[in-house]
């Protein structure tokens, strides 16, 4: 009897003990450091903890910095369990050097091939293997406008075409407001260009230029028109625009001093902080025309190579958790993005997100951001040319030639 009790007791202790034992530990490097971003990453951490894991947070501000630390740590033999990258070709070198663990099991189990947009799959899946877990979709080229500024300038309805947009900008200028609130930083200039290429040039030209790098298309008339429209927008910015942070440009809309800003969906966070809501204080336009493309950008996590079974377990658990429907909605709600899965309940998301999701249902409107089609180096070279053109008067033919040369590499 006593012997049986002892065996039972030790068996019970063993079970209880293993429940208390720490789950798979995952050190995650990411660059989400501001208040809103912190709340967003918390949804991921909570989901992982609820699934039994232990989240060790290593946040490093600025994407470039965080990515380079991740690479340095991999080189130094002390890799993190997971590291954040963008939905792009940024981690292609890592894949080619064999420095990442694939997560094929998770991808197959959750059916990523059916669940995720093809644009996202095109960078996440390399040679049949899956190397990154995408967590969201950001749209960088929303057109925001301040309802107060519109009212002051006597603008009744939001613009529905590019020409109407220019008319609106003219009206804003006449009313003494800043028509286009812009931060003169290279990445923001790139966003404006992407918006113009998508809306003025159209999906086909967009792909020809950025994905196919077709010289004829780049040096052609249609692209010339795109560049000229791009340059024309610059005349609607104010003198203090060079160097300005994007938040300060959004502040101008919030204060009703400026009318329009072209910026990503993360701008919603800035409006929310000032207690402004979509539809009431500001409006959001995804693009012009019934078939306007929805530009896809986003964040993914990659899993540095390791043979430690505990670490591999953590990586698989992490990848699975990040793509889970509940996590997807919770994360995107806090982040201002939309889920990367198409099959989730999105009734809790805000007006602009709902608009985005509705557009995403139409596969023909999916279009990747430049970094999905170009290497970081090419994207950077293109940005250099765009930002020079935005700030200096140059003949548009020269710009076309420069872009063709830069993308040839």
């Amino acid at each position, binding site marked *: 009897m006593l012997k049986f009790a002892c065996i039972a007791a030790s068996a019970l202790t063993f079970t209880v003990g293993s429940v208390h034992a720490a789950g798979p530990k995952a050190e995650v490097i990411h660059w989400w450091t501001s208040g809103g971003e912190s709340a967003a990453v918390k949804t991921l951490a909570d989901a992982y903890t609820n699934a039994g894991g232990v989240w060790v947070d290593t946040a490093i501000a600025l994407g470039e910095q965080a990515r380079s630390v991740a690479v340095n740590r991999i080189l130094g033999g002390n890799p993190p369990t997971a590291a954040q990258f963008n939905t792009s070709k940024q981690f292609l070198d890592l894949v080619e050097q064999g420095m990442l663990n694939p997560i094929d099991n998770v991808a197959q189990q959750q059916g990523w091939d059916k669940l995720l947009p093809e644009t996202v799959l095109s960078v996440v899946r390399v040679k049949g293997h899956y190397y990154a877990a995408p967590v969201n979709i950001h749209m960088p080229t929303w057109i925001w406008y301040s309802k107060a500024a519109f009212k002051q300038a006597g603008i009744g309805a939001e613009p529905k075409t590019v020409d109407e947009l220019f008319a609106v900008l003219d009206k804003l200028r006449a009313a003494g407001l800043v028509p286009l609130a812009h931060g003169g930083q290279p990445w923001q200039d790139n966003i404006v260009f992407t918006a113009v290429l998508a809306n003025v040039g159209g999906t086909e030209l967009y792909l020809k230029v950025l994905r196919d790098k077709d010289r004829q298309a780049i040096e052609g008339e249609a692209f010339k028109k795109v560049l000229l429209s791009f340059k024309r927008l610059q005349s609607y910015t*104010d*003198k*203090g625009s060079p160097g300005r942070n994007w938040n300060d440009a959004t502040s101008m809309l919030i204060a009703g001093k400026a009318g329009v800003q072209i910026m990503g969906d993360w701008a919603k966070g800035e409006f929310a902080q000032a207690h402004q809501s979509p539809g009431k204080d500001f409006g959001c336009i995804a693009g012009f025309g019934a078939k306007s493309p929805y530009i896809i950008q986003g964040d993914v996590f990659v899993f540095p190579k390791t043979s430690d079974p505990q670490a591999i377990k953590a990586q698989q658990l992490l990848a699975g958790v990040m793509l889970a429907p509940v996590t997807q909605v919770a994360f995107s709600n806090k982040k201002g993005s939309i889920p990367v899965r198409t099959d989730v309940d999105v009734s809790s998301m805000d007006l602009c997100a709902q608009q985005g999701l509705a557009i995403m249902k139409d596969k023909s409107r999916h279009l990747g951001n430049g970094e999905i089609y170009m*290497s970081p180096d090419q994207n950077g070279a293109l940005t250099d040319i765009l930002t020079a053109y935005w*700030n200096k008067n140059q003949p548009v033919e020269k710009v076309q030639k420069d872009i063709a040369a830069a993308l040839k590499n």
Partner: protein
Amino acid sequence: MTAPRSWWKVRPGHFSAGVALLPLALIVLVAYVGTVLWTLRVSLTNARTFPSDVYVGLAQYERLFQNERWLLSLNNLALYGLLFISLSIALGLLLAVFIDQKVRGEGLLRTVFLYPYAMSFVATGLVWQWLLNPELGLQNAVQALGFAGVQFDWIVDQDKVMYTIVLATVWQASGFVMALLLAGLRSIDAQIWNAARIDGIPTWQVYVFIVLPMLGESIATVFVLLLTATVKLFDAVVSMTQGGPGNASEVPAKFIMDHLFGRANLALASAGSVVLLLTVLALVAPLLYARSRYHRRGERL
């Protein structure tokens, strides 16, 4: 002068000195020389995120010198260096000399001039951006006071933006220059002043003809320190202008950093580093050589 030394007759003091310098020699060889050689090697390859073994000869250097942004960055650095170094030394020297005059509240003043040096440019750069922004900063404030015609929009002007970087970095550095020169001033024998007074030499002449030459080494130190700061100029540009408007305030260190991290182009960044280093050495080596000859004339031991 002593008799010519033969290499096998090493005196005990010199031996100890040699041994004491060994850690330094090791660091220099492995960390510095080794790194430069490694960087040189990488610049001859097609490395992207990681070092590669595919050699492409001077292709990266060709690409470098066809790059408008790089060429502009070199130009900017030359202009910047000239202004930054001369203004920092001038202001630092004036501050040091004036503070040395038994001024009341010296401790407080010294801290006021030194505190910019204590602050990282990540935040102070933003403040300068605000101050120099025509809509937000000084131009706006002065115009609001009634002086409608006053313009101070250098920071959004492609031709004048580098001057704003000079302004902000001189603000940060001259306090430290002052501290260094003050230490030098304070180590000058007080007898000099007494002697000069007895001889009836006006104070300003004492400074220009006696003190300044004695500060020679301190000023040389300051010059080299400011030169290294010039070559490494990065934080100020990133936080004030992000290299803008357009690429107008681009500097080599930022070009290198952008290509190292953002563009995942290790080889091009390495080529840029090599060119930068060689350019600086080409300028500085003649100076150092001249100074070492000057010292050899006053050989000790």
